[in-house]
């Protein structure tokens, strides 16, 4: 460990990208399609990541924050993000127009172990903004449909207006090669054609081979406990139950420490963890 002269690029240096398209998914969540400006990097960056990874989006003067990638590497060219307006950075992002610049670093994080999931039945449970990383995995599985067994996608939202990608899922429901169930907690306008109630009420439709199933949950923290109980009732092993976690991240590379839990840096050892990790590492959820 003596002389260290790495000729390396600075991984803190953001990459310029352009907003090519944006539209509102709900009242406070907006969909952004983004293209990296450097033509030489576009294809590599957008085709080699894993579903479940995230990127650091940054705006000069405001700072940087992590966002899950909601697009799939099986459709390269663009990155897609769902962004909820909650803080200073996201408020500024909402002021931007198409063709404006944003800056990216990444992709970071472990992502879902897609190779381990191949040949297995898949069971996805999404709640609220949790649909963002799960959409990436879902589209990946649909684009590579023959690599996976049965495919169940359960999605809960507070009201029909709060459901991310509502129209996209309405269309996907038509497909015969996978089961998509949607539910809402409340239906104030009384025109919701599908299930009502919490997302766990959709488990009655699920028919998978539990010993050969990868189950994935992503949503608000309160949801995990109940969904995981359902997974366990089905008899899915701890190591095949995956969840993606939210933490404060400033660097994305296991350095700044702000996402650390026990000895795990959520930004590099996560954000995808198994149920065994969660039981073993206190404080993860």
């Amino acid at each position, binding site marked *: 460990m003596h002389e260290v002269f790495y000729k390396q690029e600075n991984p803190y240096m953001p990459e310029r990208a352009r907003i090519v398209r944006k539209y509102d998914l709900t009242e406070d969540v907006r969909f952004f399609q983004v293209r990296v400006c450097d033509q030489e990097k576009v294809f590599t960056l957008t085709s080699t990541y894993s579903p479940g990874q995230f990127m650091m989006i940054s705006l000069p003067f405001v700072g940087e924050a992590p966002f899950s990638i909601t697009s799939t590497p099986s459709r390269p060219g663009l990155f897609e993000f769902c962004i909820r307006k909650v803080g200073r950075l996201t408020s500024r992002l909402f002021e931007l127009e198409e063709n404006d610049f944003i800056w990216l670093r990444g992709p970071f994080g472990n992502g879902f172990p897609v190779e381990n999931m191949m040949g297995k039945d898949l069971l996805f449970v999404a709640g609220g903004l949790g649909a963002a990383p799960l959409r990436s995995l879902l589209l990946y599985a649909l684009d590579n449909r023959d690599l996976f067994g049965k495919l169940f996608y359960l999605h809960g939202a507070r009201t029909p207006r709060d459901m991310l990608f509502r129209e996209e899922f309405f269309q996907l429901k038509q497909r015969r090669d996978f089961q998509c169930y949607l539910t809402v907690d409340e239906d104030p306008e009384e025109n919701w054609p599908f299930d009502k109630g919490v997302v766990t009420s959709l488990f009655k439709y699920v028919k998978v081979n539990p010993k050969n199933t990868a189950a994935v949950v992503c949503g608000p923290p309160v949801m995990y406990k109940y969904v995981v109980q359902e997974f366990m009732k089905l008899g899915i092993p701890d190591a095949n139950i995956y969840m993606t976690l939210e933490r404060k991240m400033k660097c994305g590379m296991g*350095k700044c420490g702000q996402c650390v839990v026990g000895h795990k840096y959520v930004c590099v050892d996560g954000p995808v963890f198994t149920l065994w990790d969660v039981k073993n590492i206190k404080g993860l959820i």
Partner: protein
Amino acid sequence: MRLFKIKKQNLIPFLRGLEGFGELWGPVKKGNNFVYVRAKPEDFDLTALRTIIPAKKFFLPSKFTSLKFRDNRWEDNYRPRKRVIFGLHPCEIHALNIYHKFYTRLYPDPYYLRSKAATLVVGLSCIPDEHCFCYATGTSTVNEGFDLFLTDLGDRFLVWVGSPRGEDSLKLVEKFLEEATQEDISRYVSWRKKRDASFKLKVDLDGMPEIVSFSYDSPIWEKMGNACLSCGTCTMVCPTCTCFDLEDEYDLKRDEMKRDRFWYSCVFREYSMVAGGHNFREARSERLKLWYTHKLVGFMSEYGSPACTGCGRCEVSCPVGINVISVVRALRNERSTALWVKMEVENA
């Protein structure tokens, strides 16, 4: 093994000679403490044990501009100055080795690597005081991580060369070097015996990783949390604490944006707080627990050794006495006179 010696009276010209590599920095007295500053070699205090801020400041300064943004382009202008840092004791060098492992894994940190390449580390032997416990952390001697290491044998210094760059740097001071003889070695052996016998602070770190892990739900964290001021001093003075934060600012005079990087602390309230206000570690006890779990367990699983090098800085710096010694004692159900223990007793 490359070993030389120099006469004691030649130390100052020896250090002056090394200045050919870069600026000379070393420990100088500040009040009742010490700080590493750029100074003349005759001003260095050879009795200095622990400086207020450890040598990590040479590798990533407490605050620096990591990136600039001008005309829609990001620039990285971080260029550390070349430095010789003198007077680093084994605990300090062990900490730098941990720093090195940490900053070169996965995504090597370019700022660290540049500083590392610009710094010549000249170690110095020491005799422990009542706060040193490096024998308990296994860091009282050092085999790598320095360029040169000097052992004080009274009228002479043994000069141990630890790196090819150290070997190169000796060309600057060749005229002071003498071959080390068998007599010097036996002197060193008796010095070692004397040094090893002079540790006063007794603490047993054996079994700490699992004891800390098993004590996750122990009430002592809550007690500690009641006394913790969340001032962050422990993390700033800890030679192996690495956490930082990034913040953008606009320099209106120069019309450029700067992304500043500065030391941050896991005991600060906003450390685990995400946009929207949710805080994953709202309680002070949770944040302290993280600190000790990370130091005594986390590094163990990751790198095979705890992230404590026994330098004693937290011991002399925490105003309410929360430090590795008092926490380890509390976890082992041993008596402790730490202020936080007293506060708990009196408030109960």
